[in-house]
């Protein structure tokens, strides 16, 4: 049985020579119909979900907008409380404090009791500062040790 190379498939055609038992496909169909189990996902009636209300749809966006508005208000408030050019907390810039500290009477009246006169004088001596240079003459008389 010599067959030319190029004609092999043409000569045989689409036949594969296979057969099935008589009535196989009809039997198979019938058997399968009885074998299919209940498919819960596909055969259960689908639960209908109520459509979402307008408020439910926009609620996350409203919450987010409120949060940003709150942050913006806080930033605005801090910027209003801060003086232009930034806050200078040095004593020289505080009018009340600087005038009080430059007033000898204030220092003598309010700070004197808090420190020991002897310690102050000893500090001054060790720093080679003359007491006369620092205090008025009448004060020195009172401070006589």
């Amino acid at each position, binding site marked *: 049985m010599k067959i030319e190379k190029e004609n*092999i498939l043409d000569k045989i055609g689409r036949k*594969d020579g296979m057969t099935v038992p008589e009535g196989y496909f009809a039997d198979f169909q019938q058997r399968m119909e009885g074998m299919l189990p209940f498919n819960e996902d596909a055969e259960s009636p689908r639960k209908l979900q109520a459509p979402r209300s307008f408020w439910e749809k926009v609620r996350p966006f409203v919450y987010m907008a409120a949060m940003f508005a709150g942050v913006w208000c806080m930033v605005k408030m801090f910027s209003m409380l801060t003086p232009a050019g930034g806050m200078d907390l040095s004593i020289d810039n505080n009018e009340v404090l600087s005038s009080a500290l430059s007033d000898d009477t204030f220092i003598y009246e309010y700070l004197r009791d808090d420190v020991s006169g002897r310690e102050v004088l000893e500090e001054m001596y060790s720093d080679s500062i003359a007491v006369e240079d620092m205090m008025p003459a009448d004060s020195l008389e009172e401070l006589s040790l």
Partner: protein
Amino acid sequence: MAKEQPREDSSLIERLRQPQTCREAFNDVMRQYSEPLYWQIRRMVESHDDANDILQNTFLKAWQSVEGFRGDAKLSTWLYKIALNESITFLAKERKRLSISIDNEESHLVNLIESDEYVDGDALALKLRKAVASLPEKQRLVFNMKYYDELKYDQMSEILGTSVGALKASYHLAVKKIEQYFADND
């Protein structure tokens, strides 16, 4: 022996999606596709009994996952894929069970062909079956789909996940090997 491809039916897919009609629609699917799927499987595994079991599993798997079938792919492509996976899995299990390598699968398939009782006695067709059985698994698959099932390369590409170019090359190689088989076994 009608081995024609069934036509796609959009109303069938729509009925498959409805809980009330899906079982009846799936019965129609089985009616339409059991024959083409059977031949596809049978040509891979050669034995009628094995093909029968695999076809059964194919439809059971398809039924279990019918909810996931959205109709994006064609119904036939979806079923072909399941049948193909089932066939390849079966062949791998058989190789393991019989302790044969993928390279020695040919002799096992030839034995099945020779002992097959469901044949029409056509000697040439039988010889072609043996020639196809001598091909590597992928080439055998491509040859069967193109030659017997007359699928288009696009659809084969979708089912097998291989480029059209690679499929054409694979088919060409398969034909050459079959011709060589006939030349060697004259």
